[in-house]
């Protein structure tokens, strides 16, 4: 297979040479906002937006500088400084088509969400802190995707985890938010363990953690399979894939822009980035590791979709959908270079339409006193038309309505999957159908049907600062997919970084899977129309069948975690604490008490009678004599 990826070459000067500015701007923003604290309350949000935009500008300039280079030279490493000399790890950036795509997405969508947040968080007294965390997130996410080695990636990886933790728990005074934040971090750490150990194995095997020094492999062996599975575990954590999916739904406790930026558009896709970035080294096409990635993706896309069907909380519904869509990306990432392009394509378009949907949901909540229960919405399209239309575009994009973004990228994944593996491919088709149902359900419950509002609800359209980002995002949701997929623009652009498939795929507007998908989506949407637009939606959640309960309870993921990990863990902790106090420390204290006790008993020998003392002298004399005689005979 000649899917060679391009050599990484050192780069100095130019915008790319100063690409660290991309990270530096938002980092500086976060620093200023956190250190100067309340002094910046009045203009902090503006600084945050400015820094994010500055970063975006640098990304765009770097992008143009990059495409100005020859195709084989589009992987530029920028050395920053020596980090850990012992491991020969340098802090450095890798600007290549893959990372710059992410950088553009992160800074672009990120900036929009920054702008949106000005309005959304206007009434929060800690808005400045919110922007500080957002800036911190952007910086960390950029470090994640721009780092030229796994350690740098890992720092960014944990940095976004931190930002996610802080933002999920932004309203930390709500116990549920605090718990959700912690849960997200801890579950992510399970994944991090995989990434960490994966790095150990990589380093031990290749004596390097730098992308530039790793060599692409053709055939996998036991070691690369192990590395692949470990990295996949890491990816599962960050991207909320089975079995580490449970945190994402709880993460919706965070403010909605956070859900849009971190838990939809960017951070959760880091797992996909990791797999694609490592693809050439550890996930060669057709390998066991790649298959594992695809299986995880397929399983998650179904699981997420099923969960999405049963949620009444609009954000949780979207969260299930996010899981599901990332499942598609993972599926694509398990399919080699052709899949990579569609996966990244879907990732980018998803970044737009899912951010659009989330921000739309936020806009709805904004107008509905932060109500998230869709059963208390209904008929909102007339009251917030801009929100409705942008949301509707996002909806069409996600269900794969022909010619919108999702149509191109998702179909690309499905078709590539069917080429590689029939079973997984058709599961993806099924997933698309379910997507059609639950997304339609969401739209119908929210914007159509009767009003089921709470009494004090006065729905209104959101301010311009919130709607403009929605509009920009929905434009992306319409056109981006076609632009990227048709004539394989993205695939060819990415090729130097991730490799090029043996034969370029051509997009079929009419194909068996495509038609089937559309049909299933139509069926799903139709069923939703009947259930949620035509029929009356009960305000109180009906009991539902066994399947509904199964989906509502997140497929019993939390119950499983609780009974398999949490409860035994609590017991283990209790036993360990008991053992430490009574066992280890008890031994020490017991020894001390033993000496004390024997002292207390022995001192009774000192009876106070002179004759006893004389006896002890006498016996001592006898013993001494006996001992000396005995020693003499030896």
């Amino acid at each position, binding site marked *: 297979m000649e899917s060679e990826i391009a050599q990484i070459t050192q780069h100095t000067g130019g915008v790319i040479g100063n690409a660290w500015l991309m990270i530096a701007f938002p980092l500086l923003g976060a620093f200023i906002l956190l250190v100067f604290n309340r002094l910046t309350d009045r203009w902090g949000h503006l600084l945050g937006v400015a820094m994010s935009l500055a970063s975006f500008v640098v990304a765009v300039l770097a992008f143009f500088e990059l495409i100005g280079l020859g195709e084989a030279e589009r992987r530029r490493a920028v050395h920053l400084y020596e980090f850990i000399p012992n491991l020969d790890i340098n802090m450095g950036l890798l600007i290549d088509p893959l990372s710059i795509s992410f950088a553009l997405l992160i800074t672009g969508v990120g900036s929009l969400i920054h702008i949106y947040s000005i309005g959304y968080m206007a009434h929060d007294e800690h808005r400045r802190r919110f922007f500080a965390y957002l800036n911190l997130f952007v910086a960390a996410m950029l470090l994640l995707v721009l780092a030229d080695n796994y350690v740098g990636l890992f720092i960014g990886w944990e940095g976004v985890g931190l930002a996610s933790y802080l933002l999920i728990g932004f309203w930390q005074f709500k116990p549920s938010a605090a718990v959700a934040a912690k849960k997200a971090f801890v579950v992510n750490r399970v994944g991090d363990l995989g990434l960490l150990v994966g790095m150990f194995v990589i380093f031990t095997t290749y004596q390097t953690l730098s992308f530039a020094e790793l060599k692409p492999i053709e055939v996998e062996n036991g070691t690369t399979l192990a590395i692949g599975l470990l990295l996949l575990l890491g990816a599962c954590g960050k991207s909320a894939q089975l079995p580490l999916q449970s945190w994402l739904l709880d993460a919706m406790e965070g403010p909605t822009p956070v859900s849009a930026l971190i838990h939809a558009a960017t951070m959760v896709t880091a797992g996909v980035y990791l797999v694609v970035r490592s693809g050439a080294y550890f996930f060669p096409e057709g390998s066991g590791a790649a298959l594992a990635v695809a299986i995880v993706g397929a399983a998650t896309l179904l699981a997420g979709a099923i969960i999405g069907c049963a949620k009444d909380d609009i954000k949780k519904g979207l969260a299930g959908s996010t899981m599901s869509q990332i499942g598609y990306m993972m599926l694509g990432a398990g399919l080699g270079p052709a899949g990579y392009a569609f996966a990244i394509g879907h990732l980018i378009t998803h970044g737009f339409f899912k951010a659009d949907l989330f921000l739309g949901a936020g806009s709805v909540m904004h107008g509905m006193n932060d109500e998230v229960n869709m059963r208390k919405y209904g008929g909102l399209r007339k009251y917030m038309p801009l929100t409705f239309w942008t949301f509707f575009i996002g909806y069409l994009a996600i269900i794969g309505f022909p010619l919108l973004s999702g149509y191109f990228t998702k179909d690309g994944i499905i078709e590539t999957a069917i080429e590689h593996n029939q079973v997984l491919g058709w599961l993806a088709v099924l997933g698309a159908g379910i997507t059609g149902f639950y997304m339609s359900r969401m739209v119908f419950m929210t914007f159509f049907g009767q009003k089921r509002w709470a009494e004090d609800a006065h729905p209104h359209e959101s301010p311009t600062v919130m709607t403009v980002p929605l509009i920009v995002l929905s434009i992306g949701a319409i056109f981006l997919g076609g632009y990227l997929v048709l004539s394989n623009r993205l695939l060819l652009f990415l090729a130097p970084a991730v490799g090029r498939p043996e034969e370029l795929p051509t997009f079929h507007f009419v194909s068996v899977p495509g038609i089937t998908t559309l049909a299933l989506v139509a069926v799903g949407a139709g069923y939703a129309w009947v259930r949620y637009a035509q029929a009356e939606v009960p305000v109180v959640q009906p009991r539902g069948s066994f399947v509904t309960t199964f989906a509502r309870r997140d497929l019993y993921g939390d119950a499983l975690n609780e009974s398999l990990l949490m409860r035994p863990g609590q017991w283990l902790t209790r036993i360990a604490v008991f053992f430490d106090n009574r066992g280890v420390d008890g031994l020490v204290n017991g020894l001390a008490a033993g000496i*004390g006790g024997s*002292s207390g008993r022995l001192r009774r020998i*000192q009876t106070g009678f002179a004759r006893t003392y004389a006896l002890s*002298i006498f016996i*001592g*004399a006898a*013993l001494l*004599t006996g*001992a*000396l005689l005995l020693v003499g005979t030896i």
Partner: protein
Amino acid sequence: MNSIPAPTIEYGTLAPLLVVFAAAVIGVLVEAFAPRYLRKAIHVPLTLLSLLGAFALVLVQVLRGRVSTTASAMGAVAVDGPALFIWGVILVLSFVCVLLINDEGHFVASAAAVPGSADEEEAESMSGGVGHTEVYPLVLFAVGGMLLFPASHDLLTMFVALEVMSLPLYLLCGLARRRRLLSQEASMKYFLLGAFSSAFFLYGTAMVYGYAGTVSLPGINQALAVGASLDPLLMIGLALLGVGLLFKIGAAPFQAWKPDVYQGAPTPITALMASGTLVAAVGAVLRVFWVGLGNLDWNWRPVIWVVAALTMVVGSVLAITQTEIKRMLAYSSIAHAGFLLVGVMATFATPEQNAVSLKAVLFYLAVYGFTTVGAFAIVTLVRDPGGEAGHLSRWAGLGKRAPVLAGVFAFFLLAFAGIPLTSGFFGKYAVFAAALNSGTQPGDSMGGWMAGLVVVGVVASAVAAFFYVRVIVLMFFSEPAADGPAIAVPTAGTVAVIALALLVTVGVGLYPESVLGVADDAASSLFIR
């Protein structure tokens, strides 16, 4: 007719001894002839000056390099390097103790009077609050005995010295002004047990004499070198001699008298016993085992191993649950006797080897003596209406009432515990090092057992640290009792005592070479054999 030649006496060499004894005799005469109100005024300078003078004479011998290399007084007394070192230490310690004794109020006015009787009141009023002035000559006699004991070159002299040292102490123990019942009881116990043990010593001497035909220590050693047969007579003699000596240093299982006597005796006398007597007794042990029994080390070292280990353990463990400060210090003294025996264990074989161990023990004795006197001096200052506040619970919170005093006491305790940067640490280090050193010598019969003994010692030290630390906890980390003990305003003498003890404990702790060098010089000339 002149078949008995006149003995030659090296007066110059023996001068320190003679000065002390002479002063003691003069003291008796003062008691007999001087009027009561003048007695103390005469005794104090006499006693102090005689001790000082004796010390000066010791110094003269050392500084002029006239340390004799042969036994003096017809082979009865050996004033060799180690003996002079021990003399110096004893003289300084007893000088310091006399300063303590000099402090008012420790001694009864009339020992013969029944406590609480009219006689006693009368005696009190007549003496004007001054106790028995006989104390001074008694102390001088005891000191004289202490000087002679480790310098004795034959067992007879040693026996006489033992008695000269002990008899005054028996009396002194009974002279406490407060808590007279306890004092008298201590005196009686000490006397009966002391006499009992010295009978053992004497019988042992007889047995050894029967085996060797002489009581001269080198003579005995020669007899052992020639014969070296393991006559039961010799073994019994050896064991009984050991009883007498080990009793004096308070080694287990002959330690029973120590806590009772230390507790009951007047504190200055306890200080004298805990410092001077111990130094003298260990000196005598060293001399007997090296000079007299050096050729028998295969036999006595295993036994002393057990005794040393037992002593360290018993002293440390029993001290833990003590509630009386002086009693606790008595047990501490037992434990320290054990540590010293570890050093004694290491003295054998080659002269070089012996010098190392001897140096260690001498050094230990010197620094331990000063710390002990300092600690007892502080004990005398913490008082209840009925006398010294002996019970430990009364010491609670002393760190708040008298931070300096408590701090100094804590420092002494840390020195006892052997914490680095105190003199006690280096003392312990010296004996442990000597023991391990001997263990690593090729000819040592004990070999690895020495390391084992050191480990026992180390564990005992750790246990012992507990009760020293417990007192610190009481003084500093507990709240003071509402009616806590008063801190007596110390007299200049007591202040001087404490200051000197502190100076030695700190000074040696920071720069041990100051004393080590002297001990090294003293030890390098070895005991005259």
